[in-house]
């Protein structure tokens, strides 16, 4: 255990702080005034797309998890927005770097990083959720192209996206996991129909996407025909890392403490109610646990199990933080949409509902428990009940 920063890392921290102080005017209320300009500035300074090679439009630094962590901490402390995220940057780019062809990397990574191309992910289907490999959207050969038919669900940003990375069945004769390909195509291709999927939050965070004979060149397959399942798994690894991020939870706990010290009932602060205070302390212990667990996963070779529990525990914790905020608000906690009494623009309520979706999405809590018990604890798999 040695948690002191080396002089180099301490100097790096100072550098990040100086940068953030110099550019404090470029953002407001946690959002950049000009998102594309902010993104370009961050890439140029090495605070976004940090480890992506220069040739593909990144900053080109060696991977250094501790520097990455320092950047994360300092941006949160300064209330500064991070670089653009979204499924293109968080999931497609790392996947292309790992398995994409040279042509694919050169063509797609740069514009994606600069925010010129927004991507959506076509994975889940109505009949293929937890059992993703059961997906049925088919891609039939037609000369140099595939003709894609079927449908996808839970597709975020499908309405804004210019491109989709999608899993389709190209080899119907092959075994379930071996007949899938990972393919890229423009959302403007004829035959694509996007329908918004409104959730309990009242917004359409997701969409359904329907395909009728959508023509896509075979050259758009990433990682080889029939290799899509393995390509997708590199992507899911990145998604799960993103979903349990302890930095985000810590920021929310900070906001919850502010809420509880500011709000009053009958002139008494919420924090002065011992029941709420006790619940807050229980959650704070969990937030610290996840924070230190996160530090450990970055630097400890023996942290395999610690890494596996992040998605399950992190998403649950976020949900509980939002739940306590709503309870602490009492009757104010039922207000939503707008109105003079609404607190935090209804974000606690929205998070409480949306976080439940994150407990389910990206591998449900139950799938996570299968992974932890089978891969982490070496327990036997559930016997197959139906032939695949």
């Amino acid at each position: 255990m040695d948690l002191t920063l080396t002089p180099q890392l301490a100097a790096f921290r100072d550098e990040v702080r100086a940068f953030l102080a110099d550019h404090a005017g470029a953002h407001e209320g946690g959002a950049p005034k000009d998102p594309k300009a902010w993104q370009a500035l961050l890439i140029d300074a090495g605070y976004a797309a940090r480890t992506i090679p220069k040739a593909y439009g990144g900053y080109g630094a060696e991977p250094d998890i501790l520097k990455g962590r320092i950047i994360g901490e300092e941006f949160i402390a300064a209330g500064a927005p991070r670089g653009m995220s979204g499924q293109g940057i968080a999931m497609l780019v790392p996947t292309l770097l790992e398995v994409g062809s040279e042509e694919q990397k050169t063509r797609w990574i740069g514009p994606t990083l600069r925010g010129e191309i927004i991507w959506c992910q076509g994975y889940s289907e109505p009949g293929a959720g937890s059992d993703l490999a059961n997906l049925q959207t088919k891609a039939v050969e037609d000369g140099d192209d595939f003709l894609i038919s079927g449908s996808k669900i839970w597709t975020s940003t499908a309405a804004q996206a210019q491109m989709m990375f999608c899993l389709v069945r190209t080899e119907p004769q092959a075994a379930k996991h071996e007949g899938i390909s990972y393919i890229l195509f423009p959302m403007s291709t004829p035959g694509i129909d996007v329908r918004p999927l409104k959730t309990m939050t009242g917004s359409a965070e997701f969409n359904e996407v329907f395909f009728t004979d959508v023509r896509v060149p075979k050259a758009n397959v990433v990682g080889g025909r029939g290799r899509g399942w393995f390509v997708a798994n590199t992507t899911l690894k990145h998604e799960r890392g993103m979903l349990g991020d302890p930095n985000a939870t810590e920021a929310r706990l900070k906001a919850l403490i502010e809420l509880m010290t500011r709000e009053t009932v009958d002139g008494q602060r919420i924090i002065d109610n011992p029941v709420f205070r006790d619940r807050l302390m229980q959650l704070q212990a969990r937030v610290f646990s996840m924070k230190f667990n996160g530090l450990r996963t970055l630097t400890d070779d023996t942290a395999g199990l610690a890494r596996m529990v992040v998605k399950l525990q992190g998403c649950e914790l976020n949900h509980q933080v939002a739940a306590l905020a709503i309870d602490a608000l009492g009757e104010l906690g039922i207000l939503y949409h707008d109105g003079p009494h609404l607190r935090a623009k209804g974000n606690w309520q929205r998070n409480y509902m949306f976080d439940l979706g994150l407990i389910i999405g990206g591998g449900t809590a139950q799938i996570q428990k299968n992974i932890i018990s089978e891969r982490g604890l070496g327990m036997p798999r559930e016997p197959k009940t139906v032939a695949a």
Partner: protein
Amino acid sequence: MRFALSEDQTMLQDSLNRALADLSPLERVRRFADRDECSAPDIWAGLAELGLPGLMIAEEHGGLGLGLVEAMLAAEALGRVVAPTPFLGSAVLAPLALALGGSAEQQAHWLPKLASGEATAGVAISEPIAGAREGAGVIASDGRLTGKALFALDASGADLLIVADRTGGLHLAQSAGSAEPMPSLDATRRIAELTFKDTPAEPLASNQALGRLRDAAWVMLAADTLGAAQTMLDRAVAYAKERKQFGRTIGSFQAVKHLCAEMAAELEPARALVWYAAYAFDHAPDEAPLMAAHAKAHLSEIGRFVARTSTEVHGGIGMTDLLGLHYWFKRIGQNRQLLGGPERVREIAARLQGLAA
């Protein structure tokens, strides 16, 4: 920066686990628990060969001069095998009290004896930390102690006692007027009721000492629970891989394997919290009290969950004396209550941040 055990720390942990497997197997623990022995000198002597009694005592006094991170690893190893030892009182809290508030003479007299394991120390600090039950509390006046101290740790048969009076001042006494065992849930460690009546005692200097003792004790109890809970998880997993019902090992049923996954998911991040709390005690004193409080309270909750869930995974056999799993269950239960239950400790955690009056 590295949030991981060093090579030396991993070696210490491994050698302790190996030694304890021989020194403190279940049959030995059972003998200690059944016979109401007040100490297990064979185990302590075996651990003395590894330097455990002097782990935190300065090298000039014959110890290893290590910190609370190493003591935390030792506490975890002892909790893993529910070892009956006076480690907390004799090797952690008394040496700490002497180092913080003892005179040069007191240190020179006691620390070498504690380091070699030749003498052991008990610690009675419950009242000013967990709160005084009716009639309890010690009053100090003119070098003499009067009153009762409950829940004294490792005090039976001890050669010296560290006693906190009602105001939090610490005293060194060679014996109490009387030391009555308090039969408790966990038979793997002894606690006692000490009665003082004009008993001579030497005051220890330093008004910060009790706070440091409290923080160290909380981290140690959390680490002991971490070790005990890890064993309960390991045993549940092993049992579920072996036991067959309906023609399948029960570990292949999601109803069972998910219980195991939940235990692991709770325990693994809690480990990082205990590590950090010990690290903060050694290197980040400003954060140490809050982290110690959170470690104590959180491991109390996680420990209770693992203790009941592991027992449940074992089914009926988990309840039996024959299996002996109950020693771990009770050890975790006792750690939860000792020196303040989680509600009290969380209230202190809030106070430390200015969130409670």
